[in-house]
């Protein structure tokens, strides 16, 4: 029994190590394959079961994002002006907003095929862009690019560019305006209000 447990533990450890070392495009491919398999086989997720979608997102997607860097990029010039506590709050609120708005999109998956373009990177690179194309019958392919950086805990996504629109930089205008009007705390308040109103909307829908 102990030997079995030890073997299992070792297996898990090895799997973890492999995941960390995987090339960035291999990692994105593996994650998308896994997530698509789960969505395809789970009727509740296809029907939009938010609790199940959240579990999936927490387990499979969030560990591969660097939300601190995403937030820093979105806040831009205002970031150095925030203190450590403000930074942490900004990261948490921004993460909540992104997860809330984009996780719902998982339930709209309809047999799209993800194609990977060849990765243009030198062996020593620590910052790469994984380029993919999402193909769907009867529609123009949509490019989705993942900007990724190498960290001690593996490759992490810090921006997603959909059809040429960067998710992170597109927030910069919004965030700059809030900081200009009400400082860093003004931005925190705006994000918190937004998240609260989205939560109450979701609550109203599920009732």
């Amino acid at each position, binding site marked *: 029994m102990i030997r079995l447990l030890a073997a299992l533990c070792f297996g898990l450890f090895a799997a973890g190590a492999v995941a960390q070392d995987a090339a960035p495009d291999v990692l994105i491919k593996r994650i998308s394959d896994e997530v698509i398999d789960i969505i395809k086989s789970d009727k509740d997720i296809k029907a939009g079961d938010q609790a199940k979608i959240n579990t999936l997102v927490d387990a499979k997607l969030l560990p591969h994002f660097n939300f601190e860097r995403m937030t820093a*990029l979105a806040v*831009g010039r205002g970031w150095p002006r925030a203190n450590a506590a403000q930074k942490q709050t900004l990261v948490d609120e921004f993460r909540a907003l992104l997860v809330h708005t984009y996780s719902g999109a998982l339930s709209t998956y309809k047999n799209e095929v993800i194609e990977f373009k060849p990765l243009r990177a030198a062996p020593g690179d620590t910052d790469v862009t994984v380029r993919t194309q999402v193909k769907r*019958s009867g*529609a*123009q392919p949509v490019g989705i690019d993942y900007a990724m950086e190498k960290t001690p805990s593996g490759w992490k996504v810090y921006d997603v560019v959909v059809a040429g629109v960067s998710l992170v930089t597109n927030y910069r*205008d919004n965030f700059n305006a809030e900081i200009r009007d009400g400082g860093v705390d003004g931005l925190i308040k705006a994000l918190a209000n937004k998240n609260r109103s989205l939560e109450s909307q979701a609550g109203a829908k599920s009732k």
Partner: protein
Amino acid sequence: MNMQRFCFGFLLIGALGGVAGCATTGANPDDPLEGYNRAMFKFNDGLDKAIIAPVAKGYKAVLPEFARTGVGNFFSNLGDIWIGVNNVLQGKLDEGVSDFGRFAINTTAGILGLFDVASNAGLEKHNEDFGQTLGRWGVGSGAYVVLPILGPSNVRDGFSRLAVDWHGDPLWYIGNVPTRNELYGVRVIDARASVLDASRVAEEAALDYYSYVRGAYTQRRRSLVYDGSPPREPEPAEGPAAAAQPEESRKP
């Protein structure tokens, strides 16, 4: 035609009222018309919520997916000729030839364009218009402008859409005006129906929907001009590049 003129005059008055009513905040150097733009954006959004989006929702509910795909393909096929012309104007002859090939294949084997068989045969659909052609020729985008009904644009793309692209649209040459207008209407509703999910996500995601759409439009058009791989934008001085540095390195 009189009706069209009347509507346009009405919109123009509305637009001018918007300019007079709002002082520009001048926060974004690429959006000097922000006061007018916000008013027009609100007007368009109201129109969308009152009429266009509900009709699109109904259309989506009534028509099965394969039928909507057919409608989308039909209009997409008519668009391929003008896309091909613009590819040629930009010196991309291979792409242009491919676009004309798509039109020939889809019009015949694809039964008047209802089926996009050319994509399956490996001829990829492109996205081109005269605004992109001007961009390729080195014309800058100019200020951001929200057009009545047509929505987000800029000086270059708005001019191209209103003055040039119009003539590359096969529907424009249909002599029977009621038929033509019906086809315009279906095209608008079909296009709106295809982005219902996306527009809902964007509206939820944004702190300020107006500037979120402005940013997305500007980035999208820039990306299209460079066919998906635009050169890196110059970053503002103490901008994101500095912000992205690990915090430790900036501590005194």
